[in-house]
């Protein structure tokens, strides 16, 4: 459970049940904010975008304050202030603002993650970020203040003493709050007053302690020290603060009513500009505390006198009557345009529910297959209705299956979304200029793939940025545009999804790769095709980079990428032209869970082959098989020789004394190579529901999963890639 700061003491209300919803929501808001910040056109900032970004920060702040995450609330409060000025056009957007807001979004994420994990350990120090934001917020003097803001002097009066400091420089004499202030700050902010505050008579004097806590919890409020109690039911404090009396009373009133508080000056104070105090108080707008102050200008709740809906004789509650002022300006609270980030026509469903649904549909497919199997021997003329019903069932099940599988399909945009930011940071770090183009964001893929494809793709993009795209001056010297382009695209091709990472950089050097391969003892020759040469870079530890940046180039990348993609049932290919660029194509099966399979019999056991890897099958003719060293065999298929994998030997299938009748060869292809699997009999082709073997057991070599046959028994699905690799190396 996340730690809770004292944001209101409602003892009967356990707000922690809402934390998870809030964390998820805040995460989405941060994603949205980041996306909008990155696409913001600084020269012509779109009003709606600015408003949208503001609302994201505002929403997070509200939730954080309500649920007691005051560190997040504080940071987002500052972000919100800066964004508020931007959306009101009091400030011009600048790249440094985008930078600090992006960094602050990152910091907010960390702070939230810490809370979500239970709040252990030290909190991130955000004081530097806060200083920078405040500096930017003040750095540019506002143009003539908008008339509607007349009541609040904030826009007119220079808020911070550091107003004359140039952008990005840290203001000295920082009026910004120290993160925790139990001890008096060394330099008291300007406008500080010394006060003596008496609290009482109190039913429970401890209530006054809560007042002291306020000073600890609100950054910048001031300092407080206990004084000897004037009476048993009274408490007294010495306070240094820049806040006005009214502000203090507002704060205290949550714990003690106004009538119980007396504020007295303690030492002669210089006359202070009330506007400046107001401005500073407004700038350090307290939040996260509940006020109830009858007659106070900053009330926490109030009813408009004479407004519709106010019951007869109802007290105006927490506020003085609000007289409608004839000069009250009509503020621009007009209904916003139809732009909305909210999809009110979708619902959230937990992943486990979807998985359960898919499992059940899978069961249905199996049962339907069993019915189909069992009804094969029936006389159609006798059982016409039954057969026709079964045919309908077949169709319906297929449709249902497709529908259900599509629930788990999400668009590639979710994978692509992290790259703009990543590339921006990376290109900046490497001193390169790179544009990112994405295509086919709407292309969908299965949710489970999304998680697994992100790392390999990230590596490929980093590679392109680091090794592919050249430095600006190198590009210009080569007659290219200064800014390189990396293109991420996704499309459906057949039963697969193809994702490409293309760059217009320097491309691969055949020479260098061959040289490196020789150095590493890999066998190569000059006649190798280009694609074979490019394939060499998938060897472990292979890297032709001259310098190893901390980004990539340690040579641990490409082989892991290939392995990851292979384990998803996919393949990777490289295409390159030296000097022009490089393209990496990743091909993945569209769904993992349902597969077209070919079932084969080996002795008494049934195994399933992925139909997509089956090339052909034929009856063995002994003359075509030759035995070579160590008992391995080759079979001649037309003009090619390929290794034979006898499944009964690979899986040590017991034959129980029966004669070996392994007469059928099935040619399968994986990883660009072919082998012939030797089996007893081909049983048929059908769709199978793929079940995970590793969830309750472990990874088994040469087996990629399991399925349940029509008779309820489990059959193992062969990992053709594994079998091919075994046979060839």
């Amino acid at each position, binding site marked *: 459970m996340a730690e809770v700061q004292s944001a209101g003491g409602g003892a009967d209300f356990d707000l922690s049940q809402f934390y998870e919803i809030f964390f998820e929501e805040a995460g989405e808001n941060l994603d949205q904010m980041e996306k909008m910040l990155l696409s913001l056109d600084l020269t012509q900032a779109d009003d709606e975008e600015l408003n949208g970004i503001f609302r994201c920060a505002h929403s997070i702040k509200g939730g954080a304050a309500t649920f007691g995450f005051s560190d997040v609330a504080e940071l987002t409060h500052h972000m919100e202030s800066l964004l508020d000025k931007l959306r009101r056009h009091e400030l011009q957007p600048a790249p440094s603002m985008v930078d600090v807001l992006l960094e602050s979004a990152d910091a907010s994420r960390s702070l939230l993650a810490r809370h979500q994990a239970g709040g252990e350990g030290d909190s991130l120090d955000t004081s530097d970020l806060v200083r920078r934001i405040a500096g930017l917020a003040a750095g540019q003097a506002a143009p003539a203040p908008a008339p509607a803001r007349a009541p609040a002097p904030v826009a007119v009066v220079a808020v911070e003493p550091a107003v004359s400091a140039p952008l990005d420089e840290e203001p000295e004499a920082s009026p910004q709050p120290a993160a925790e202030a139990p001890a008096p700050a060394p330099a008291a902010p300007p406008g500080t007053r010394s006060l003596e505050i008496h609290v009482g008579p109190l039913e429970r004097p401890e209530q006054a302690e809560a007042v002291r806590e306020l000073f600890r919890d609100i950054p910048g409020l001031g300092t407080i020290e206990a004084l000897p109690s004037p009476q048993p039911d009274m408490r007294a404090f010495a306070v240094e603060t820049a806040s006005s009396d009214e502000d203090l009373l507002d704060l205290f009133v949550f714990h003690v009513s106004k009538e119980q508080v007396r504020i007295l000056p303690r030492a002669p104070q210089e006359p202070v500009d009330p506007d400046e105090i107001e401005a500073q108080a407004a700038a350090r707008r307290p939040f996260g505390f509940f006020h109830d102050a009858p007659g106070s200008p900053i009330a926490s*709740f109030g009813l408009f006198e004479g407004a519709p*809906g106010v019951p007869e004789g109802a007290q105006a509650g927490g506020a003085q009557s609000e007289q409608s002022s004839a000069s009250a300006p009509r503020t621009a609270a007009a*209904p916003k345009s139809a732009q909305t980030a909210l999809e009110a026509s979708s619902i959230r469903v937990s992943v486990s529910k979807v998985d359960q649904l898919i499992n059940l549909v899978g069961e249905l497919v199996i049962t339907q297959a069993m019915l189909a199997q069992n009804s094969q021997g029936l006389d159609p003329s006798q059982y016409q209705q039954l057969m026709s019903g079964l045919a309908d069932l077949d169709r319906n099940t297929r449709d249902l299956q497709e529908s259900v599988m599509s629930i788990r399909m999400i668009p590639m945009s979710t994978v692509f979304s992290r790259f703009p930011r990543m590339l921006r940071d990376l290109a900046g770090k490497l001193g390169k200029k790179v544009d990112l183009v994405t295509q086919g964001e709407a292309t969908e893929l299965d949710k489970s793939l999304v998680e697994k494809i992100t790392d390999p793709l990230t590596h490929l993009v980093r590679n392109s940025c680091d090794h592919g795209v050249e430095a600006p001056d190198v590009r210009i010297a080569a007659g290219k545009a200064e800014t390189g382009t990396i293109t991420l695209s996704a499309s459906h091709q057949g039963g697969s999804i193809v994702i490409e990472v293309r760059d217009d950089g320097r491309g691969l050097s055949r020479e260098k790769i061959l040289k490196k391969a020789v150095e590493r003892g890999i066998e190569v020759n000059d006649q190798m095709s280009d694609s074979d040469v490019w394939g060499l870079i998938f060897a472990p530890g292979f890297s032709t980079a001259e310098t190893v940046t901390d980004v990539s180039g340690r040579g641990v990348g490409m082989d892991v990428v290939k392995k990851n993609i292979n384990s998803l049932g996919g393949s990777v290919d490289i295409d390159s032209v030296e000097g022009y660029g490089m393209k990496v194509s990743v091909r993945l099966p569209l769904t993992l869970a349902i597969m077209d399979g070919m079932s084969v019999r080996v002795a008494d056991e049934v195994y399933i082959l992925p139909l997509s890897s089956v090339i052909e099958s034929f009856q063995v003719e002994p003359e075509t098989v030759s035995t070579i060293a160590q008992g391995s065999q080759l079979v001649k298929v037309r003009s090619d020789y390929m290794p034979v994998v006898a499944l009964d030997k690979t899986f040590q299938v017991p034959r129980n004394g029966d004669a070996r009748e392994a007469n059928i060869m099935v040619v399968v292809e994986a990883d660009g190579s072919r082998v012939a699997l030797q089996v007893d009999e081909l049983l048929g082709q059908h769709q199978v529901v793929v079940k995970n073997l590793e969830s309750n057991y472990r990874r088994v070599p040469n087996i990629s999963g399991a399925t349940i046959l029509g008779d309820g028994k489990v059959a193992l699905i062969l990992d053709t890639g594994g079998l091919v690799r075994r046979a060839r190396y």
Partner: protein
Amino acid sequence: MFSILAVDDSPSMRKMVSFTLTGAGYHVVEAVDGQDAFEKAQTEKIDLVLADQNMPRLDGIGLTRMLRENPKFKNTPILILTTESSDQMKQAGRAAGATGWLVKPFDPSRLIEVIQKVIR
């Protein structure tokens, strides 16, 4: 039983408010923004509207204005939830015809107190 229309684009806030109010014996209708709230108000029985101010599509004050134009909601209590309590905000709220306001963040028990002042 009184029926409250709770409007907020933040799911966590909405859930929290809804939970608090149902716990206190109110029936709650949730809406994700002003537009959604306005549509729901047409068909549901509503005794009080509790609306966040800052929302996309249609904000709290905008919603108030639209509701007040409908005779059915001429006298329905409408409370705006806001993180600001500036005079400007209050004036806008009043001009739109809101019944009152409540500053966020608030204590859940305070919410109930406030509502009880308005509908009994």
